[in-house]
C-alpha cells in the first residue's frame, strides 16, 4: 500500500522542494532572527513578512515519541516510532527514526539524530532521522 504523502501548498513548496533536493530548509525572520516551523509567509514571533529560507543543519535530538502498535497499513506490519525531533535551530518536527530498532532501549530521549531523506516519488522525499554521533 502506497504511503500517505503530503500535498504541498504555495507556502510550503520550498520545504518539500528542499527535501527532494536533499536539503532541510527552514525559515527565519530577517528582523527578529526567529527560526520557525512549519513554513508560512511571515514570522509567527513578530508578524514580520520579511522572512528568508535557509538550509538548516539537519541535526537535532530525539525529543519525544510513541511506538505505535495500532494498524496503519501503509506503514507496514511492525510497531514503529512516531517521533518528534528538536532541531538544533530550535523548532520541533514530527518524523520517524530510521536505522535503529524501534524499541525503548534503542530510542533514548535526547540522543543526537541527523536527517536522512527517503524518496517516495519524483516530487516528495520525507525528512526522516537516524542516530548520529554527538
Amino acid at each position, binding site marked *: 500500500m502506497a504511503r500517505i504523502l*503530503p500535498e504541498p501548498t504555495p507556502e510550503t513548496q520550498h520545504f518539500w522542494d528542499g527535501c527532494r533536493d536533499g536539503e532541510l530548509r527552514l525559515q527565519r525572520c530577517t528582523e527578529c532572527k526567529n527560526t520557525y516551523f512549519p513554513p508560512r509567509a511571515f514570522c509567527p514571533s513578530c508578524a514580520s513578512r520579511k522572512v528568508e529560507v535557509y538550509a538548516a543543519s539537519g541535526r537535532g535530538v530525539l*525529543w*519525544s515519541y510513541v511506538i505505535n502498535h495500532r494498524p496503519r497499513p501503509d506503514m507496514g506490519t511492525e510497531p514503529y516510532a512516531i517521533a518528534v525531533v528538536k532541531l538544533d535551530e530550535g523548532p520541533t518536527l514530527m518524523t520517524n527514526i530510521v536505522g535503529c530498532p524501534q524499541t525503548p532501549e534503542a530510542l533514548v530521549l535526547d540522543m543526537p539524530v541527523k536527517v536522512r531523506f527517503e524518496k517516495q516519488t519524483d516530487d516528495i522525499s520525507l525528512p526522516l532521522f537516524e542516530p548520529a554521533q554527538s
Partner: protein
Amino acid sequence: MMQNSVAVVGAAETTKMGKIPDVSVIGLHADAALNAMADAGLKPSDIDGVATAGISPVELAHYLGIKPTYADGTSVGGCSFMLHVRHAAAAINAGLAKTILITHGESGRSRVGAGGFGRSPSSLMGQFEMPYGVTSPPTMFTIPVLRYMKTYGVTEADLANVAVVQREWAALNPRASFKDPITVDDVLNSPMIAWPFRMLMCCLVTDGGGALILTSADRAKDFPQKPVYILGTGESVETPLISQMYDFTSSTAFKISGKKAFDEAGITHADVDHLMIYDAFAHLPLYGLEDLGFCKPGEAKDFIRERNTAIGGKLPLNTNGGGLSYMHSGMYGMYALQESVRQMRGTAAAQVRDAKISIAHGVGGMFAASGTIIFTNEK
C-alpha cells in the same frame, strides 16, 4: 463574564449510554435535547438559542423545530461544549437569547450516521504529521508524554495509577461502562497501544450524548431543578499539530483557560470541592492538575498516588469514572459538564457531600484547545 448571572436549568444525558446501534448521531443529539428539555420543563418553542459541535447548529435547530435568535457552531474538539457554555453565558448577558440549548451526540462506537476522521493531504496535519504514521488520537495525544515523564521522573506505573483510581469512582456509578476494580499491574499488562500507553490508559469508545439548557439567573429560580450557576469561565486554543505544542510538559491552552476561569470566579484552589478533568488518556489528569494550579509541575503523580483525588480525598476528581471508565464517545467534554451539574444539584451517583464549587475542565483535539467552567450551587 458576570459571576452567577447565568444558570444551568436543564441537564441530561442520552437515555441509553455505551452501545446504541439503533440511534444515529443526530438522533443522539435529539434524545439528549428532549431529556434536557423535560428536565427543565421546556418545549422546543421555548428555546431561542442553540449551540453544538460535531454537527452544525443548523441541523440541530431544524431537526428539533427551533427557530433561534442565536446559534454557535464553535467546534474545537471535545471541549467545544465548555466554550458553548461560556459563549451562551455571555450571549444571555448581552440579550442575544434567553434560553440556550447546547447538545452533544456521538456514535463513537457504532458509527451510525457518523462522519469520517480524514484530513486533507494539503492541511498542516496532512503535510507534517500524517506521513509519519499517526492514525487515531492514541498515536498523537500521547506523543509529548515521554518528555514529560523524563522531565519529572514520572513512571509508567504513575500513568497506570490514574486509571486505577478512576475505576474506583466508576464502581460507584451504575451507568459506568467499566466498574470492576483494576490494579496497576492490570493496566501495565493490558495490550500495548502506543508505547508507553497500554489499553487501560486510553479512553473508552462508546455511543451517547448530553444536553444543557442555560438561562439567566433571574429566570432560573422559576424552573423545577435546583439552579447551577456559572461562576467563572475560560477558553483558549493552542495548536492543530501535537508536534508544535509550545511545551511538551504543559498545556499552554490549559493554563490560559484555567487562569481566566479562576480570575472570573474570584476563588482560590482551596475553594474547589469537586473537579472534572477531561481524561481521554491517563496523562490528561496529570497535566490538568498541574496546569490548573492544583499541583506544582511534576507533583500531580504524587498527589494522585497519595489519594487526594480518590474517594474520601480532599479533591474528588472525575467522579463519574471519567473517559477512562465511564464513557467516551469522542467529544467527552459534555459528560464532564453533566457530572459537575449533578454534583452541584446533589444528584450524582458518587455524590461529594456539601460540594459547593465544581470545575469542569476540557481539552479539545490533541492539546489543541481548552475550556474551563466553574459552577456553584450558591448565589
